[in-house]
């Protein structure tokens, strides 16, 4: 897998999304819980806006000095016995990990949930290197068994129901019990426990790397990242280069923001910071440790007006409040990064050609801006993407360009405007019936497929106002 998921064109993906009733119900209910949880935490703190401000300042400072802090981080990981590899591209990252696997002659690899490894398509690379890869996050494991991509960056199997999961377990692993979530989870625990114990290599992502000491931090609830970092003798962490904080003091703030914004918890069950290899006398933890720092298109965003998109801490709060995501689900975005942040990031990382529809997959309602714990101006960046698509990439449809040219002429000429205001009702007359348009022409077609459009008013406001001034009419 890589960042782009599926091959269906955008319109088909959307159609598929809106027709999937179970998924939409699951998303609506999940959004409700996520939103309530986040809001409750924000209310309880009472000064949430200060927290967001601090989060934003920390991210801004870190990204502005990212070269400095990455150097510090790599020095410190290295001092503690770890090997650090800077990968410019997905291919370089995958090749490095493949080489570690081959050198270790590793047969089995266990992974904890990581979006960056999805992004670079690491699992395929590992299989190519002859290793059996096991995803150990419950949601990711379900998806792996079913060969399905994630639809949410925090709860990746959000689109699946328990009956589907039971079926998958039965078919792929001979599960024969009920579809109660507890029984399903217990089965996963038993199955995966064996994988943890027998794995040669563990691979994790990274929520935050602490530059000052070289600690790589994982934020989880299930405990799988702890398993992956405690049991196999060789361990590899793959991090997007921006997932960095200067010191432990900032780790505190960003972790507090992440767990609250993501899942409405003060802290998740496990926040685990590992540094390098295990020390003398320690009998668990890796004896060989690798940190792979991935660029894969991120550096191109630095120094541009989109730099703040790199502030993202992957909490999915914007996804959880997005009314568009609510209707179409994650797969409709065609990227492993869905929702508002996905609509901003995907064209930057994967190119406009592949993801040009995403910046328009927003009603610009601004809900994302309101919740982002590090104050990324997602709303403004979506508009900026549209400007680039129109003005720089020249990718906008011809008819739209013409219409907008017409708009500019109309709106900058009061005379033309006045004439159209008077003529609108007459112009739409052929489609109007009982003050309503039910099957409109041109741009109104899509609208009137699902709803009516009123006929323009009998008299425009400006003509009424003029008459009124002359003393002609009362209301």
């Amino acid at each position, binding site marked *: 897998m890589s960042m782009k998921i599926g091959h269906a064109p955008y319109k088909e993906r959307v159609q598929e999304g809106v027709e999937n009733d179970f998924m939409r119900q699951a998303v609506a209910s999940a959004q409700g819980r996520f939103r309530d949880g986040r809001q409750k935490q924000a209310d309880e*703190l009472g000064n949430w806006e200060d927290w967001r401000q601090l989060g934003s300042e920390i991210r801004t400072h870190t990204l502005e000095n990212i*070269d400095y802090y990455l150097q510090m981080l790599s020095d410190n990981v290295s001092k503690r016995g770890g090997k*650090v590899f800077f990968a410019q591209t997905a291919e370089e990252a995958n090749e490095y990990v493949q080489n570690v696997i081959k050198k270790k002659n590793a047969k089995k690899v266990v992974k904890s949930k990581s979006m960056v490894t999805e992004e670079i398509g690491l699992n395929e690379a590992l299989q190519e290197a002859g290793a059996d890869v096991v995803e150990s996050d419950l949601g990711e494991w379900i998806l792996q068994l079913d060969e399905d991509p994630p639809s949410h960056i925090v709860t990746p199997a959000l689109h699946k129901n328990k009956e589907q999961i039971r079926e998958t377990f039965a078919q792929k692993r001979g599960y024969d019990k009920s579809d109660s979530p507890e029984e399903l989870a217990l089965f996963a625990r038993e199955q995966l426990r064996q994988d943890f114990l027998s794995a040669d290599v563990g691979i994790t992502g990274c929520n935050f790397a602490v530059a000052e000491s070289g600690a790589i931090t994982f934020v989880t609830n299930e405990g799988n990242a702890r398993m992956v970092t405690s049991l196999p003798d060789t361990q590899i962490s793959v991090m997007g280069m921006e997932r960095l904080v200067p010191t432990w003091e900032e780790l505190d703030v960003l972790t507090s923001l992440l767990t609250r914004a993501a899942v409405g918890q003060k802290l998740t069950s496990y926040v685990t910071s590992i540094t390098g290899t295990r020390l003398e006398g320690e009998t668990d933890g890796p004896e060989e440790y690798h940190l792979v720092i991935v660029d894969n298109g991120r550096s191109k965003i630095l120094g541009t007006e989109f730099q703040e998109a790199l502030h993202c801490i992957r909490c999915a709060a914007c996804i959880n409040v997005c009314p568009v995501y609510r209707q179409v689900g994650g797969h409709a975005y065609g990227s492993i990064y869905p929702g508002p942040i996905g609509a901003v990031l995907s064209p930057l990382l994967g190119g406009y050609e592949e993801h040009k529809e995403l910046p328009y997959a927003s009603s610009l309602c601004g809900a994302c801006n309101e919740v982002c714990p590090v104050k990324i101006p997602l709303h403004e960046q979506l508009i900026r993407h549209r400007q680039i698509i129109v003005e720089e990439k020249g990718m906008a449809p011809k008819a739209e360009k013409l219409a907008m040219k017409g708009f500019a002429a109309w709106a900058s000429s009061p005379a033309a405007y006045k004439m159209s205001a008077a003529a609108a009702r007459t112009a739409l007359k052929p489609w109007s019936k009982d003050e309503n348009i039910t099957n409109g022409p041109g741009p109104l077609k899509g609208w009137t497929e699902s709803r009516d459009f009123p006929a323009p008013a009998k008299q425009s406001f400006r003509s009424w106002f003029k008459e009124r001034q002359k003393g002609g009419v009362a209301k």
Partner: protein
Amino acid sequence: MTIQNRDSFLDNLAANLGRNRRTEGVKRPKWSVQPQYEVFTGLSQDELVEKLEEHCKVIHTEFKRTDRDGLHKVLKETIDGFEGKSVVSASDERLQQYGLNDFYKSLGEKGTEIHLWDESKGEENKVFAERADVGITFSDITLAESGTVTLFNNKYNGRSISLLPKTYIAIIPKSTIVPRMTQATKLIHERNLEGQDVSSCVSFVTGPSNSADIEMNLIVGVHGPIKATYIVVDDEIN
């Protein structure tokens, strides 16, 4: 070579930022706000215990409180409650301080399998922990706000103890309780500045493991322990 491709990678970042590489002299700015220090400021140690107790309900963790004299009894009851036939425990100096060596010895004599983490036993530590019913550690720093036990894992306190067994007991000396994560990370930061190496693994553990990956239903107990109990001990420092 323990660091590869660094210079070309970081040079490129600096170039994109439109400036030269920064290799020294970067200071964290003075942040305009510091809300993290406002949480539970001015609360007494006992008030922090109350906050911790309150939050234990949210994190599906049983809360118990005792003093040094009562610890053995409460520990025994908790292990029994977990139907603990096998127990793995961290083995730092606090075992001695709290008289737990004797306690475990007597427990062992009555038929409970006891394993104290021991570097000389290598892999055996993990193997025992994996099949143990109960894992027991002391908390190094306890976060009242989130109900979190901070563990500086080391050769006496392996990562597996609080992870692999079916259940987990944290013994929390009252003096280890602080308002929130801020105080713990500040301490780590300060120690780091003084040149002390941070533990190879710092675990912030908040109750038993859980997941909401199946239809957003909360399932308590996934890969880590299924149940957890905190025992707060009124110790002499207060």
